């Protein structure tokens, strides 16, 4: 994977993944909202030997088709497109405000679907490449503590499953990465991070292995697959009594 485009390149996980994708001749096209942070991430990858282009954009507002077309024009062949942005909304605030709920759905859901659909067309024409998005274990089952976020992520996850079906046997790989608890700025407000929490660098290692390997759903770290299998399997009668 030499030519890589990252949407949401300023996120902690995206930055850690990008560092691990550095190799001679690596080229990155980074898109993010915070210009100073984006410049910092770009400088780091350049110092590590990559060629880097950046574009400042709010990915909710942006014309997704136009942006994706620019990315393909700039990189030529695109080996990997990674959708890595997200915003963890305050669930209570969502319950009190419909605009807040819809904004969270737009950031974590519909805007990502727009990028994925636009990218799919180009990858299909290219006849290969990998489309990956960082969704979440929250997509697996609605919970009272974060169902707005979870529903938006589930939208993307189901969309990716459909793309995978569409591209089966045609060279385009579609990877759905579902991190568990990761210690990032997005989760900074949680205190007392216990045994289930991982560092961005740790999950980045898992993610890069998934990106190199295949197509499908990857829980990172891997033990979340087992945890979520249990969570999904619980009958509602029990699930509703759990403090989740």
């Amino acid at each position, binding site marked *: 994977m030499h030519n890589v485009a990252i949407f949401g390149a*300023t996120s*902690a996980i995206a930055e850690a993944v990008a*560092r691990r994708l550095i190799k001679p001749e690596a080229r990155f096209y980074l898109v993010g909202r*915070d210009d*100073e*942070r984006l410049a*910092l*991430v770009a*400088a*780091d990858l350049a*110092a*590590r*030997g990559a060629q880097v282009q950046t574009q400042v954009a709010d990915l909710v507002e942006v014309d997704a088709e136009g942006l994706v077309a620019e990315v393909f024009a700039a990189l030529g062949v695109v080996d990997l497109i990674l959708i890595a942005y997200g915003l963890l909304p305050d669930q209570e605030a969502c319950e009190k405000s419909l605009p807040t709920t819809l904004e969270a759905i737009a950031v974590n859901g519909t805007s990502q679907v727009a990028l994925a659909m636009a990218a799919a067309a180009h990858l299909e024409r290219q006849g290969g490449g990998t489309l990956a998005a960082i969704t979440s274990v929250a997509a697996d089952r609605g919970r009272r503590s974060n169902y707005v976020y979870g529903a938006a992520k589930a939208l993307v996850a189901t969309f990716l499953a459909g793309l995978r079906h569409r591209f089966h046997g045609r060279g385009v790989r579609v990877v759905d990465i579902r991190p568990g608890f990761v210690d990032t*700025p997005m989760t*900074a407000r949680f*205190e*007392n991070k216990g045994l289930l929490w991982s560092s961005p660098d740790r999950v980045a290692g898992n993610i890069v292995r998934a990106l190199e390997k295949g197509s499908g759903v990857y829980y990172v770290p891997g033990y979340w697959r087992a945890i979520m299998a249990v969570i999904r399997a619980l009958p509602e009668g029990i699930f509703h009594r759990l403090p989740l």
Partner: protein
Amino acid sequence: MEISGWGRHPRIDARVLRPRTFGQLAATVAGEVSLIPRGGGRSYGDSALAPTVVETRHLDQLLAFDPATGVVRCAAGTTFAQLLDALLPHGWFPPVTPGTAAVTVGGAVAADVHGKNHHRDGSFCDHLLSLEVLTESDGVVRCSPTERPELFRATCGGMGLTGVILAATFRLRAVPGPWIEVESHRAPCLEALLERFAAHAQAPYSVAWIDCLARGRRRGRGILELGRHAPGPAAAPREPWRPAVPADLPGWLLARPAMAAFNALYYHRQRRAVTRALRPCRAFFYPLDGIRHWNRLYGRQGFLQYQFVLPAEAAPAGVAAVLDRCAAAGKGSTLAVLKALGPGNDNLLSFPREGLTLALDFRLERDLPAFLQELDRLVVDHGGRHYLAKDARLSAEVFRTTYPRWEEFAAIRERYGGHRRYHSLQSHRLGL
């Protein structure tokens, strides 16, 4: 949230701010009355503790690197582990590295850290080309040995009290690969150990582990490790499994009998007087990084690390006196580390000076403060001083006696407004 130094004593409840850009950092600092910058949290005591701390963990980027000259400019939150990951594959190694790779470059500057090559290469700040510092009076400024040299001399070793170190530029060392050729010498007593240190003053890296519980003619017995970068197998060493200490262990586990057994075992593990081996450099420089959360071994109450340096002429007698006091009081350290240091530098609060430095870990016990005050007296009487990066308890009086340039430091800090904004629990205690 609750934070502490690596020794886990003291612990305080603090507001932890984690800006993601230099601009955010400046805005964050401007909005606070008093705070202290914090890097990897690997100073042992209270030098990075304050009711409000600003962490540099998200500012861990390489900003520029020239593979032809080995000059790197990086943000202050970059750790030595990150430097090694990024640059060792290209044949570059930090000019000086502390004993854990979790230290950040900002922390290494603030404590002017030394490594196993101090006797030949000096401390970390001796290799700096320049620093970028956020100051209260002048905003972001650059300083170096020739540009604002007074700010440079105060910031190197200045424990974060002059401003926030944002970025550092320094020259790396070209190495043949990730391997170190290690020669270990077993020495049956302190005198023999010091002889070997002197005989191998030309070795690029040297450090000794001593058994601080051995008494009588075995006093100060230990193992001197010498290292040099060496070509090794082309394949990089395998990343070993790093076990973690999962929770606080009961404090008695490291009580005296267990510690004595451990020390004896460590000493006798080496059967021959001299052995040679090729080791991965991470295992050589960062042996304790192999056990994550090893500070939990001392239990919930934490521990104190006690590190001092004694000037060359007084050092052998002084170290012997300290070891005698430890043995007599039954206070031992699980691992005691002895190292011959080379000449010091001109930085106002830097720790290293020519002589011997000894680092001891002590489990926190009720009678420990009184015992350490006795050791303080021995250190002061032998003309030595303590390493502020390890300290959680030194008195202002001892500090001012042993760091006579503290007033110069305070004046420069005041000139740049640092005294208005940057304070740690340590700076309050030391009267800075």
